[in-house]
Every structure is written in C-alpha cells, then in structure tokens.
C-alpha cells in the first residue's frame, strides 16, 4: 500500500491545517412537524485539506509523481494524521486535479485534499 509523501522535514501538513469529520444523514420531515432521522454513513469519514507552501522542486515533483501513481482519486493509500499520529490505511485523494504554482526557486505551493474511504 502506498503512503502519502512526506516533505523533507518529515512533515505531511503545514499550518493552517484543516481536518474534518464528515457524516451523512437523511432527515425526513412530516406534515405535522415530526422528523425521522437516520444515518447513511456507519461512522464519520475523516478529511484533511493539506495546504503546502515554500516547497522545493523535489518536494513538488514527489507530490506530482504521487498524484500520477494514484491516478487522481482512483488509488488508495495510507495517510498518517500528524495531529494524533493515527494511521488511516484506506484513503484517497479527493479530486482528479493536482495544481501547483512555481513562484520561484524553492517557492512552490499547492493544496491537496485527502479523504478516508469506507470499506
């Protein structure tokens, strides 16, 4: 199983780091105002928005290679959440697009979103 690449510093994320838990529920509302709610996800799914700045060329190349090897959101990999050190063994990229900007030598930036898969 592939693993999300780390930066040269060993870090995966930089500040500001966004971590979300996503649930999905259905809510049915009846004419008398009563509601019936039920969950669709058995448990919340984690999501991380990884904003990276001041990357050097080798770090960007590693992320680009990772995106290609994953074929966008198709592949799955292990992601380590550095907030708590927990490993999530079944994650994917959220999008089929990887965009980055080279603003100068060792001054590249990009944003990636990683989501936990169900099943």
């Amino acid at each position, binding site marked *: 199983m592939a693993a999300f690449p780390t930066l040269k510093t060993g870090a995966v994320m930089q500040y500001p780091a966004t971590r979300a838990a996503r649930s999905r529920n259905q809510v049915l509302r009846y004419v008398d105002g009563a509601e019936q709610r039920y969950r669709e996800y058995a448990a919340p799914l984690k999501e991380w928005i990884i904003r990276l700045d001041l990357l050097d060329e080798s770090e960007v190349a590693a992320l680009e290679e990772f995106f290609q090897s994953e074929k966008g959101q198709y592949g799955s990999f292990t992601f380590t959440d550095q907030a708590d050190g927990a490993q999530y063994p079944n994650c994917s990229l959220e999008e089929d*697009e990887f*965009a980055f900007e080279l603003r*100068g030598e060792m001054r590249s930036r990009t944003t990636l979103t990683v989501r936990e898969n169900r099943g």
Partner: protein
Amino acid sequence: MLVFPQLATGVSGQFPIRKRRLARTVVNEAAGGHRVKLADDAAAMIEWQLRFEGLTDGERDEIAQFFTAMEGRLKSFTFLDPADNLLKWSEKLDDAAWERNVLLQVTGGIGDPLGTQRASRLSNISGATLRIEQTVNAPAWFHYAFSVWARSDAPEQLGLVRSITGSTHVATHDVGPGWKRLVLSGAFSDTAESLKFGLEIEAGRAVEVFGLQAEPQLGASGYKKTVSRSGVYPQARFGDDELDVTTEAPDRHSLNLRIVSRA
C-alpha cells in the same frame, strides 16, 4: 520540428508557472459511503499557464508568429516543460532508457546527498573510456543545463556529455569524497531534432552519481526525480485560440499562454 520557442535569455518559462495535472475517475458512490471507482487512464491531461513579462520585440514576435503558425489550438507541437526534468528514469540508470556498454556497471541503492539511498555507482571495468547516455527528442539548438551530483572515494574525473551526430560537448570535472553538483550548460548551432545527455567515465574508474537532470534553460534548478515520463511533450497544443499581447513600453511586452497536452 515544431517546438515552442525559447526566449533570448534561454528559457521557455518565467515565474510564476502554474501547472495542473488532470485525471478522470468514474465514481459510483453508495449511500453508505462505499465507492466503486474506474480509472480512465486515456483522459489524463496536463496544463501549463505561462505568464511572460519583459519580452523584447523579437521575443514577442517569435511567440506570436509561432502561435499564428499553430493557428491557436489547431496544430500540435513539442513543448519542453520548464518545470520538469527532460530525462526519464533519473534514478534508475540500469533502465533501457539509458544506453551503455555492459562493461559500465551500475549499482543502485547508494547513499545520496539528500540523505536517502537513491544514488548509483558507475564502475567502468573495461580498458577504455565508456559512456552512459540517454536520447532526448528535443531541438539541439536550445540551451540546456545538464546536471548531476557526483562523488568518489578516491580522486577521479567525470565527464558530462551533450552530443548530437557529428558533434559532442564534454566538460570534465574532478570528483572527490564530497558530493558536488556538476553542470554542463550550452547549445548546439545545429538543426538536429534529438540530442544525448550522458556521463563519461575513464577506464577502470568508479564514480557515484545522483540526480541526473536536463532542463531547457541555462542554469540548473532544483532536482526533479522522473520515472517513465520526462518533461518532453511532443503533442502539446495551445489551450486557447486567442493570444493577447500587452505592450507596456517600447520593446517591453507581456502575455499569457495556456498550453495543454495529454499526460
């Protein structure tokens, strides 16, 4: 050869450069969150957004004439990615992309200057000087920077080679125990549509090398590892049918370009 031109300064892109890789995945998501996915490999695309500033009249004319010759998005051309390494398999020197005599032995998994184990040892066990080189289908008349880190246990010499049929540029450097980044920069005055980059090692010598990189510019930038694809895109096209050029002062112009290619 139809190739996106270099500027007079020997570069084919200016900062900032924006690059986008696009994949396509068919996703069927069940109510419970389980996803069934199918990758559509053939739909992968890559896009560059290039901003040029401070162009001279000559540079503006060259880009504008090239855009006109391509008729906007209609025709395809070769594009050398200014943000990538033009060599394939930059860390797998025993791959078939690298041409070498079998008496030039490659040993991988050697410690490199980045603190990992991705360098290679090149050992020439023959009685003659040997080369390891790779052909790049790119115009010989462009400026290129070919770079490599090198070291050896004992003082050795390593030749950096750029060649076309009938002409060779070699820069020989002294190599010692410390890692040193070596660069061969320059262009041929020739219309050849491919050229070779490589290393030349004397008989009976061994040198450790890492991070072979060729770039369409005068100086070496940060190293980019490559695998099966390099930064040469032979079927690129402009992303728009319109080219707007802004003239800010005499002999000073700016423009934006979008170039796309299948990945």
